[in-house]
């Protein structure tokens, strides 16, 4: 099946099998390996990307469902060599240890701030319920989201 998608501002047209998962399309066909494959059972959130402005788990979606969509992956956040405020905050606040969950954490964090520029700690934790960090570095991740909110609001 032919699909056309806009990924990080660039248009892609490919012929794909209906059963091809979006995460496999992104990583193996388009070559964007920022979104990770963690649990493959839609629990861990490492594959989180933005589809038409909404954070979704790309392991639980077929590429054909994304036909015509606008997709942003972690690779699309930095603009003109400048990190996105959420990326900057994860760096400054040590919001990562091994880094495996980070692309998904940052995409989910971006969704929190897009919808609510001034979240409470509880709202941040609620917004990150779909993302797991095996290093258990949650405290620094929450701090990073708070710092990003402050930086964007400043």
């Amino acid at each position, binding site marked *: 099946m032919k699909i056309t998608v806009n990924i990080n501002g660039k248009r892609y047209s490919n012929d794909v099998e209906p059963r091809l*998962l979006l995460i496999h399309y992104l990583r193996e066909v388009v070559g964007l390996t920022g979104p990770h494959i963690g649990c493959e059972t839609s629990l861990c959130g490492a594959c989180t990307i933005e589809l038409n402005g*909404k954070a979704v788990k790309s392991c*639980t*979606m077929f590429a054909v469902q994304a036909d015509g969509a606008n997709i942003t992956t972690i690779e699309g956040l930095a603009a003109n060599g400048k990190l996105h405020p959420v990326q900057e905050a994860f760096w400054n606040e040590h919001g990562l240890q091994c880094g495996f969950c980070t692309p998904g954490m940052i995409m989910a964090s971006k969704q929190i701030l897009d919808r609510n520029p001034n979240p409470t700690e509880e709202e941040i934790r609620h917004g990150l319920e779909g993302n797991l960090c095996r290093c258990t570095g949650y405290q620094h991740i929450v701090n990073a989201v708070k710092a990003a909110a402050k930086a964007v609001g400043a």
Partner: protein
Amino acid sequence: MIPQTFDYTAPSTLDQALGLIAQGAKPLAGGMSLIPMMKLRLASPEHLVDIGRLPELRYIRDDAGVLRLGAGCTHYEVETSPLLRGKCPLLSETAARIGDVQVRNMGTIGGSVAHADPAADYPAALLALEAQIVLRGAKSQRTVAASGFFLDTFATALEPGEIVSEIIVPVEDAGAGTSYQKMAQPASGFALVGVAARLRRSGGTIVLARLGVTGLAPHAYRAASAEKALEGTPGTAADIQMAASRIAEGVEANADLHASADYRRHLAAVSAARAITAALARTA
């Protein structure tokens, strides 16, 4: 984790979709239950019809005393709809507790209802709300009460060729108080047990009590005995405890690796007491 091969069609109208479904194609909405099942090869449909992007199934409107929700509304849309938050807050509150934000962005109310997972959240709220569920086929349309829809684990009143097309819930009058309380399985977010309470009070007495329970039994149900225990009382702490102690009456409790039957019954009583207390505080 690669599903078996299948054909995929994304029709532009509901009629086209229903025509394909009548021929045996499987509807795909948000895919939050179906796709994991396909990846595990617990389901291997030969033909998927994508109804997840049909504008015809995506509306929330006030219609002469009731609210009508298209089956394609996502949990996020149900959670954030100003109309629902104002006129049927129980449904928004329940949607906000489903899974996680990524799941709520994709999953739909119609898909969840049709899938009828015994631990899904909506069934408890729909039972407490005495909701109606509209079922459509290529040449048919009928309306079923929520109480007659959830028949067993993953089993509903849907006939082959039918989809859930609309959910109808009442506009709450200002005096009603509602609440949904659940104990979630921490990894999946599914309800070990969830209780939705809807109460109305008049002159200091509870005149209407509706309690929907999910996660405890093979399918969601209304706790009639607990409702009766509550109605006609002022809703003191002792009244609430008495009603909550009857929440599991007459049902066989589920047991699995996450929670034994005894533990689930205990959680049901705790969740019921919390839901009743919170709902009562919201009554006018």
